């Protein structure tokens, strides 16, 4: 077990990780002026490193705009990362082009947040799920395609006759199941779940979460589960990574993180989770101010402007993610 995250893929966990992200950055240019010069850049993802072991669920939490979704999309190359490495099954995804990239996409899929925007309104459910099969040539002929689509629909708890219907004929939860079936069609190894239940009713959330867990067991899937609902993440994740302003500030197993948060930001975040028992009083840590502008993130530790325990060196030195015992890693000068 190494104490500092290294630039080799297999450093952080005992097993060879399925996915290793190293120092991933995505800076969105802001263009303006006569010749569309780059006048500024948004530091959406500013040096993220994480590992996901095969078969585990890594939760990625943080408030809006901290770069969770951008990280997920960079891993899938839906957004081109500015720099960094993404090692998946022993290959650097950022270096893939053309046919190799297309082939890689079979092994990595995504489930989206908005079940209304993520399905083409003009295609039937059969067409939406079947497209994945067509693109990768996984079926021959119409009959085999239909059989496979029916099988996928049943896997996610929908009925065969649903394949001829259009997305607008379904409820949010059913649509999310269609999205899951589409992702499953190519038999991926890793699925990036980008807030898959945030747009759903609480009762439906539980159904979809349970479905995701069942599918993980059945197909041996690995999830990168992006969310801002901490209780959902605690429930589904083996490990949780906390992001603040484009960086990972703390990684630990769910039990460890929720029982013993080390980073002051994680503490504040967890103290905001409601407890379903009015008798329990908890010390609520309220952070001062807002998240700083990602166009000009603070120097040193990104969190020093709001940190209750910040010191002088937090303004100048960038903390690195280092082990705080076992698989608990924290990026703070003062804790760990």
């Amino acid at each position, binding site marked *: 077990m190494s104490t500092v995250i290294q630039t080799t893929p297999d450093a952080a966990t005992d097993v060879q990780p399925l996915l290793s992200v190293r120092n991933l950055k995505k800076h969105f240019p802001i263009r303006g002026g006569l010749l569309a010069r780059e006048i500024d850049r948004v530091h959406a993802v500013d040096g993220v490193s994480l590992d996901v072991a095969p078969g585990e669920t890594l939760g990625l939490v943080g408030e809006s705009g901290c770069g969770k979704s951008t990280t997920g999309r960079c891993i899938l190359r839906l957004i081109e990362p500015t720099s960094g490495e993404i090692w998946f099954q022993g290959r650097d995804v950022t270096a893939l082009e053309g046919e190799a990239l297309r082939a890689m996409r079979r092994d990595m899929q995504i489930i989206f*947040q908005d079940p209304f925007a*993520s399905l083409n309104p003009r295609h039937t459910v059969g067409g939406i799920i079947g497209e994945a099969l067509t693109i990768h040539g996984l079926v021959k002929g119409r009959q085999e395609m239909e059989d496979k689509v029916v099988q996928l629909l049943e896997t996610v708890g929908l009925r*065969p006759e649903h394949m001829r219907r259009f997305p607008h004929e379904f409820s949010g939860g059913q649509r999310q199941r269609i999205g899951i079936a589409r992702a499953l069609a190519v038999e991926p190894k890793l699925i990036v779940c980008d807030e898959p239940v945030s747009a759903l009713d609480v009762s439906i959330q539980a159904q979809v979460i349970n479905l995701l867990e069942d599918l993980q067991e059945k197909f041996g899937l690995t999830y990168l589960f992006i969310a801002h609902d901490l209780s959902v993440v605690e429930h589904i994740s083996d490990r949780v990574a906390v992001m603040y302003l484009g960086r990972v500030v703390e990684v630990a197993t769910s039990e460890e993180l929720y029982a013993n948060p080390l980073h002051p930001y994680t503490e504040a975040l967890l103290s905001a989770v409601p407890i379903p028992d009015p008798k329990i009083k908890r010390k609520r840590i309220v952070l001062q101010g807002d998240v700083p502008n990602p166009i000009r993130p603070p120097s040193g530790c990104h969190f020093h402007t709001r940190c209750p325990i910040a010191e002088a060196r937090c303004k100048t030195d960038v903390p690195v993610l280092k082990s705080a015992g076992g698989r608990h890693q924290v990026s703070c000068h003062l804790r760990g």
Partner: protein
Amino acid sequence: MAGSTPASLSAEAPASASRATKPVTPAAEAWRRFRKHKLAVASLFILGALVFLVLAGPWLWAVPINEIDFTAKLKPPSGEHPFGTDDLGQDVLARIIYGGRISLAVGLAAMVVAVLVGVVIGALAGMSSGRVDAVLMWITDLFLSLPQLPLLLLVIYLFRDALKSAFGPEGGVFILIVLVIGGLRWMPVARLVRAQFLSLREKEFVEAARALGASRVRLVVMHILPNAMGPVIVAGTIDVAAAIIAESTLSFLGLGFPPDIPTWGRVLFDAKDYLDIAPHWAIFPGMMIFLTVLSINFIGDGLRDALDPRRVV
């Protein structure tokens, strides 16, 4: 209903079972939905009748279009001349039937050219970001800012003779007018398509297709373009009307078809000096343009609704 199928899974929704038993092709579904739009169906019927009339007319109404008879000039509609006669005693119905071929063909062909050019340019601009998009939009703005009529006149003046010698007097002028009208009316379509592409390509269902490994062509053809077509269809139907009217402007200036070819715009123009004494001469060709444009607009509405599965019809 679901009587012939085992009602195992579909017990609570028999309607969906009957839907599942018979496969519905997208075209059949679109046609079913189109038929629900009564005005569009009526318009399709009217346009079909007009097309049939101008194609089969010369056999149904075998009166020569250029037989001059001064004894029968400016006669109102009668049994002998259902649409009356013009100032040379020529039969207006026969002339409208003959001229309709050209007016309809010019209108439809120019629309096709304008929509094709507009969709290609708009799609290229919308899919490529940065330089290509900027250059294409500069070109579009340039064309929008050109004074159209002088340009039209110049192009026709420069190329008419070459095309006439290549395709004959009528064919040459037809190609020229279609290209000129179509080539000067694609800009609104291009801007519409680009705007649609810019918003659609960020949609999650497009991202999902990209994540599945769909090629750029597949993204455009299967996902973006079909969702962008609604406004384009409406713009296209307006272009038909504009092309028919632009053709009559050219005929009026003596730069369209030769004066002896009675396109609807030409007949209308010839009749304008006699509006007070022979209104029928102008009313009938005007009615034809009106009917054509109106029915094409309604058909466009119907098509847009039929091709959009979100609309419940």
